[in-house]
């Protein structure tokens, strides 16, 4: 497993631990495993503001946001929003 795959696996593991229903699409934007784009679909976002949704993702990722992840472009959708998208 290369570095990018290892980080990807860890991001998914942490997000699923916090949001077991999450559908996660990750892209390593720079192939350096530190700039990521994530689309996260979960019913946990239901009724939450964009700020609250992103905070939930940041909280799930914990100290990864202070080390291996330098930048994270996020799209947070409920299952209903994902169907429309």
């Amino acid at each position, binding site marked *: 497993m290369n570095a990018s795959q290892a980080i990807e696996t860890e991001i998914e593991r942490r997000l699923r631990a916090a949001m077991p229903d999450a559908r996660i699409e990750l892209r390593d934007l720079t192939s350096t495993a530190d700039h990521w784009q994530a689309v996260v679909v979960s019913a946990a976002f239901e009724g939450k503001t*964009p*700020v609250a949704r*992103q905070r939930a993702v940041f909280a799930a990722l914990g100290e990864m946001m202070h080390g291996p992840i330098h*930048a994270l*472009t996020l799209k947070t959708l409920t299952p209903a929003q994902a169907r429309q998208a």
Partner: protein
Amino acid sequence: MDEILHKRIDDLIKSNDVILFMKGSPQAPQCGFSARVVDVLDDVGVKYASFNILSDAEMRQGVKDYANWPTFPQLYVQGEFIGGCDIVTEMYANGELQALFKQA
């Protein structure tokens, strides 16, 4: 967080209607995400203050803790945390940001 640091951030946010905590300056952003929010604000035509968090390590950590938000840029409007690059860009695309400044 240190009380003096907290007050410093609080004062900055409350004394500026619109303030962007960013990497670099609006004239010379040092990160693509900060640059994008500068472009959005310039396009909306709103006047804003900015703070370069790269110039001050204590503020860099303090502002993150203040908002419970781990990344920059961070936009505040009338004392309220609006979000980072993704949220500001999305609000710009759907017109919410323009509406927010019309009220402000």
